[in-house]
């Protein structure tokens, strides 16, 4: 399960001033960058922000947030990470630490959002299914559309494993759960995705046959 860096490249495309920093740290691992960040190295902090923000942003977008919310959550997450950067332990994997904080920020944010929106909209309304789900084929769907029907807990597990490239152990750490529980969620998510993708395939097939 290799990390997917396509989004990262698209972000940095128009961001020339960052490139030297990223290049400087291209061979370093995240643990080294975190250690330097803790020592007060601004370049290491900037490199971390540019390296990890795309996948964090995607995490927030996939987790039911709109892009505006995802931008806010990303900023809030980095501010919190900066505040609690001393809680990172050298030698430990960075991603579980980072995603554990990101999850906390997301839950906190949505709790506040729910409070303010509770009076304005019915919360038990079925969320709108993105248009791409209804009209697109499985291979052209965006990640958000593809994962939209999954429950939140399964969505985040799949996102961490398939987009962030985290191992089962790392996802378990990030979600404060056991490896067995993560495995079970991933298995159930795959079952649902299989049913859904097969359904889309059949619909497309029958549409093609009738036209």
């Amino acid at each position: 399960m290799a990390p997917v860096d396509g989004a990262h490249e698209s972000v940095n495309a128009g961001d020339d001033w960052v490139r030297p920093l990223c290049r400087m740290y291209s061979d370093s691992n995240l643990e080294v960058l975190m250690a330097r960040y803790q020592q007060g190295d601004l370049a290491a902090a900037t490199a971390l922000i540019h390296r990890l923000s795309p996948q964090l942003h995607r995490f927030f977008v996939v987790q039911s947030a709109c892009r505006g919310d995802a931008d806010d959550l990303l900023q809030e997450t980095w501010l919190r990470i900066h505040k609690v950067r001393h809680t990172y332990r050298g030698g430990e994997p960075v991603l579980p630490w980072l995603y554990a904080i990101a999850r906390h920020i997301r839950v906190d944010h949505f709790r506040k959002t729910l409070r303010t929106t509770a009076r304005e909209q019915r919360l038990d309304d079925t969320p709108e299914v993105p248009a791409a789900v209804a009209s697109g084929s499985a291979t052209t769907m965006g990640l958000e559309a593809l994962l939209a029907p999954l429950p939140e807990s399964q969505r985040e597990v799949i996102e961490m494993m398939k987009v962030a490239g985290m191992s089962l152990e790392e996802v378990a750490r990030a979600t404060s759960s056991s490896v067995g529980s993560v495995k079970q969620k991933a298995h159930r998510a795959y079952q649902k995705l299989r049913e859904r993708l097969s359904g889309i395939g059949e619909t497309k097939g029958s549409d093609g046959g009738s036209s």
Partner: protein
Amino acid sequence: MKDKEIDEILKHAAQGPDVLDPMLLAQVAKSIESDMKPVRPLPPTWMLAGGLFLVCAAIAIAGAARAGFYGIEKLSALERALIFPALGMFIWLAAMTWVNEMIPGSRRRAAPGTLLGLGTAGLLAVFAGVFRDYHTEHFVSAGILCLVVGLLHAIPTGLLSWFILRRGFAVDTVGAGLAAGTLAGLAGVTMLEFHCANLEALHVMVWHTAVVVISGAVGAGIGWAVGPRSGTEIRGVRA
């Protein structure tokens, strides 16, 4: 459809554009620039847990020294050898669990709820094995007194322990509160085992053990009140 095919579809979907404004990243980097200074990482888990263990022992011994060591004086050597090592083990487990709850991304060896359940069941088993006098006298009045004394010792333990872990960050505040409450309650029970000379089985099993349960519940309640509801499914906010 095979898992590999789903993997491919997910991989393809994840490669789609997720446009992130470069100005946003520049803004984030700039916002932390003004406060960029070296920080001291947290000490190792064993050291923090050791500190918590010492706080629990100090509070229990100090409390018993003030009130009198009547309980431990009445216990036989075998009873002491069964009760206090068990309490020490549960305190160590609770301390490790709380430290892990205060460090994001830590490996969770036992969920705080499991810890409370195991701790309570373990204490009940030890007390049931040690104390055989099922006769009761002043069950409620003597019990409430012990409960209050135990909880009164749990409060300073919780506060001092929090001071040790004040630089941590709990991503699951309910879990952290539950672990903290369990640890504090165990310090209260230890104090009672040093002090309480009432060795009736039901008294010890009900009222002494209740200190841990109530303290854990209070800790979880405080965590619930101060933090986000981790694990809740959030619906209806999709834009």
